[in-house]
């Protein structure tokens, strides 16, 4: 098939944090290597890095900041970042071929997080999300993304 010829694009994993740094949700798809620390430590490390990089980016900005920190990339992966004015932070790691993901992350916020968590009065905010409905919708949303490919490495 045509899409198998070139380097495959993929989504590795996704974190959702609230404004207090609590990791509300984590899921992964094609993560070949783990960080070697507990998940709790990993979330803290990730959130701490985001917190620092945000303030670094705005301090160092030679121009007026607009959206602030959006993404970084290494030689192997790309981290996409989206933050709402209420401090909900969505982080998605993909491989390098994936283009700008702001719209995708905004969609996760507005059509999944807000619809299935915030608007459900029985879903507590500020703690790990228990909603299976949310998890399954998120799962199918990610799998349906044009750049999602389960086999890529």
């Amino acid at each position, binding site marked *: 098939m045509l899409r198998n010829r070139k380097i495959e694009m993929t989504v590795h994993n996704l974190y959702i944090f609230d404004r207090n*740094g609590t990791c509300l949700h984590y899921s992964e798809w094609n993560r070949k290597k783990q960080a070697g620390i507990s998940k709790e430590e990993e979330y*803290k490390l990730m*959130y*701490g890095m985001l917190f620092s990089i945000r303030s670094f980016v705005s301090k160092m900005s030679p121009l007026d900041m607009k959206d602030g920190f959006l993404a970084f990339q290494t030689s192997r992966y790309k981290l996409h970042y989206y933050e709402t*004015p*209420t401090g909900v932070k969505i982080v998605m790691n993909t491989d390098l071929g994936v283009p700008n993901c702001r719209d995708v992350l905004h969609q996760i916020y507005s059509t999944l*997080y*807000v619809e299935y968590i*915030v608007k459900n009065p029985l879903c507590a905010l500020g703690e790990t999300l228990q909603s299976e409905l949310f998890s399954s919708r998120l799962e199918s949303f990610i799998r349906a993304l044009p750049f999602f490919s389960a086999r890529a490495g």
Partner: protein
Amino acid sequence: MSRQSNRTTESKKMNSELFTLTYGALVTQLCKDYENDEEVNKQLDKMGYNIGVRLIEDFLARSSVGRCHDFRETADVIAKVAFKMYLGITPSVTNWSPAGDEFSLILESNPLVDFVELPDNHSTLVYSNLLCGVLRGALEMVQMAVDVRFAQDTLRGDNVTEIRMKFIKRIEENLPAGDE
């Protein structure tokens, strides 16, 4: 627990009498449950707050509004976008304090009070106090601490309904404790 999948971000039509009567039933029940008006006002504010902290997320998801640059912009967004979206009215923004940290929303009409007349034994009841809580909760989520209160109310014989909003401070985001 099945949910309809054809959700849209457009606002759906709802019978406004049902909305008004539901709010009325809520206030009435609170008046039965609590001894005095002060306590009812407090409960309404608290409920509003809990609504506000969730409603702001819905607001951000639907509108393309980003972070405001100053309190004047916030005032405009509240009046022209938020009130319009959720209550179908557009209050006017007036009476700015010289320092620009305080303003009034003047409501020509208030859908919550369509059928209401305050009885004499509830003279200190702030019937629509829920709105104050909503505004306070919503703004707190976008890092703004504000004080919100009713300055005038047509239910108490004033000509207009006036909500007074005062900016207190910007809430700084902190790194959770115990992190290195």
